[in-house]
């Protein structure tokens, strides 16, 4: 295996990893507040099509990215309205959001199929840093969204563990009535978390159409939203561990198209099963451990909260 192909693999692992991490981080924030949102795949699709369409219109990739995040957040709030305000079943609402997002993105993007992209987010040039052997191509010549993902992860870890908002947000996912009694609005906390999750999923979708493969095709998300859901569990609801998982799963995605170059005689399709099987394995370990000590999953995950019924 040549040095160049190894560098190519690691660089792609970071790139794919950041793509998965953005969406996973959004889901993590939402789940920390007690809301399971299985709409990630749909939110990503909506972000992807918004990013591409706005780029076509404005020829400005940054405006397109912002639009994708905004639309992602608004789209996620549909789930918020039904689950938080109306107390609907989160599984059903989230899956419907995925179906709606896949349908809506196909509908909106129908005439954009095959069109050349209006604008792309060019790789960041870090000057001399980009010329360092290995680290240069792997870390210092990536899409701006890679650095955004790193910053978002650090910010999320800080807010969740070091601020009172983060404490309240985690409280909403552990014991909503306690947070309510402490004077916080559970509705506002949860809606905020869902909207943030939607914005990050939107950014992840836009990464696809503004950086990775700058074009629109129906079904461009290709199940990556489900990997993001898996990553949250794989990372045991911790931003740091999720980042490690994202690099690992991103590496597997990157390896998929390179198996033959490396002379490995294994079907790339079978390789792509690994993230899901690993996640099931991790979930089983978490569940066994949960018998002896508090589970790492938010205690109130999936439960609606109604103040008058506490």
């Amino acid at each position, binding site marked *: 295996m040549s040095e160049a192909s190894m560098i190519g693999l690691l660089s792609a692992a970071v790139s794919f990893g950041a793509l998965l991490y953005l969406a996973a981080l959004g889901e993590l924030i939402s789940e920390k507040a007690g809301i399971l949102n*299985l709409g990630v795949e749909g939110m990503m699709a909506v972000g992807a099509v918004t990013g591409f369409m706005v780029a076509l219109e404005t020829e400005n990739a940054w405006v397109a990215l912002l639009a994708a995040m905004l639309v992602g957040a608004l789209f996620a709030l549909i789930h918020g309205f*039904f689950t938080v305000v*109306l*107390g609907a079943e989160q599984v059903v609402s989230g*899956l419907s959001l995925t179906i*709606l997002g896949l349908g809506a993105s*196909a509908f909106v993007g129908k005439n954009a199929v095959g069109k050349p992209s209006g604008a792309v987010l060019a790789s960041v040039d870090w000057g001399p840093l980009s010329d360092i052997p290995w680290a240069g191509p792997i870390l210092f010549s990536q899409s701006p969204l890679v650095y955004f993902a790193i910053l978002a992860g650090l910010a999320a870890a800080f807010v969740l563990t070091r601020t009172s908002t983060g404490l309240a947000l985690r409280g909403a996912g552990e014991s909503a009535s306690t947070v309510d009694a402490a004077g916080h609005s559970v509705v506002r906390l949860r809606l905020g978390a869902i909207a943030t999750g939607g914005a990050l999923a939107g950014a992840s979708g836009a990464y696809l159409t503004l950086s990775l493969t700058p074009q629109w095709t129906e079904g461009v998300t290709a199940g990556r939203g489900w990997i993001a859901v898996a990553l949250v569990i794989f990372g045991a609801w911790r931003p740091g561990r999720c980042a490690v998982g994202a690099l690992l799963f991103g590496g597997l995605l990157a390896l998929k198209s390179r198996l033959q170059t490396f002379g490995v005689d294994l*079907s790339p*399709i*079978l390789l792509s099963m690994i993230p899901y099987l690993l996640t099931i394995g991790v979930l089983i370990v978490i569940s066994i451990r949960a018998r002896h000590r508090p589970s790492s999953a938010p205690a109130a995950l999936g439960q609606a909260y109604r103040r008058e019924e506490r």
Partner: protein
Amino acid sequence: MGRLVLVRRDQVLQGGQPLAFLIGIFSALLIGILLLAVSGHDALAVYERMFDASIGSSKAWSLTLNRAVPLGLAGLAVAVAGRMGLWNIGAEGQILAGAMMAAWVARIGESWPSPLLITVMLLAAVLGGALLGLGPAVARAQIGVNEIITTLMLNEVALRMLQWLIHGPWKDPESRGFPLAPILPEGARLPGLFQQAHWGAVIALLVIILFGLVASRTAWGYELRVAGSSGATALYAGISLKRKILTVLVLSGGIAGLAGGIELSGSSDRIVEGISGGYGFAGIIVAALALMRPSGVAAVALLFGAVQVGGLSIQTMGVSSSVSTILQALILFGAIGAGVFSRYSVKRVSKENQEVQ
């Protein structure tokens, strides 16, 4: 002045759910009109075509019925688990597993007499779905592993398995490079019923009726509901939760697997990547709209089948078939929204008096 709160009604409104369902359909159609009009289509002409293609003739009905079969069985699969408060999100993968098992039987039993071959294929399909449900079932019953995530993950695993088969060992040498399995032998195809419809509709209806009877008339069905509404009560009543969880999730998988076998043998004729086409996920919406009731599942599946057939028909008018996908999700959201008001009423709470009236 004050704020509005939802207050639980003492009694659920009579006929609330069917009404909520109708409101859901109505509001979805309304939003659909807006969507079509904004994008420059003649919305009413589009709807007319959809109605015509899905229920306008006996051929249209046969197409609708063929789609309702996997939707109904997937919906039933979700409902079987849902009655016990469990979520089988894995119907999509179980449908694929069922189809793969049935296709495998068709490969080895090509020379068998047709009725035998089809029977064994469908049984194998049930087994395939049940096997995919077994893992999450054991994990949930024995260790308490959340079945939502495990079943969801196995969807992707089953999909990769199928992709591997049609890109590799099962690839049709005459497919000119396309990832397709060979067409099934004639004897492996379900016989026709009328027009395009096949016997799958009869099988699906029988399965739905059978489960409906078991759920409402037997002690087992009663225990299921008790276990679903309160695990603690079930324990006091001596109902073994572990065994119930295991049976229900495996049964649920088996029913979804059957849907895959019927889809292969009746409609698709060969294994292709899109053989499930989202039936498993749509089944979750079907079950939710039907409030996990078998009779409701059949009705909603028929409606969704019609919407899907209608969606395909408007492509010739230059309208994206995704309209039907959007409509299905909107029907659900509309119905959830409306359904809330059969269980809750809106009360105004004044600032001074925070107590609910």
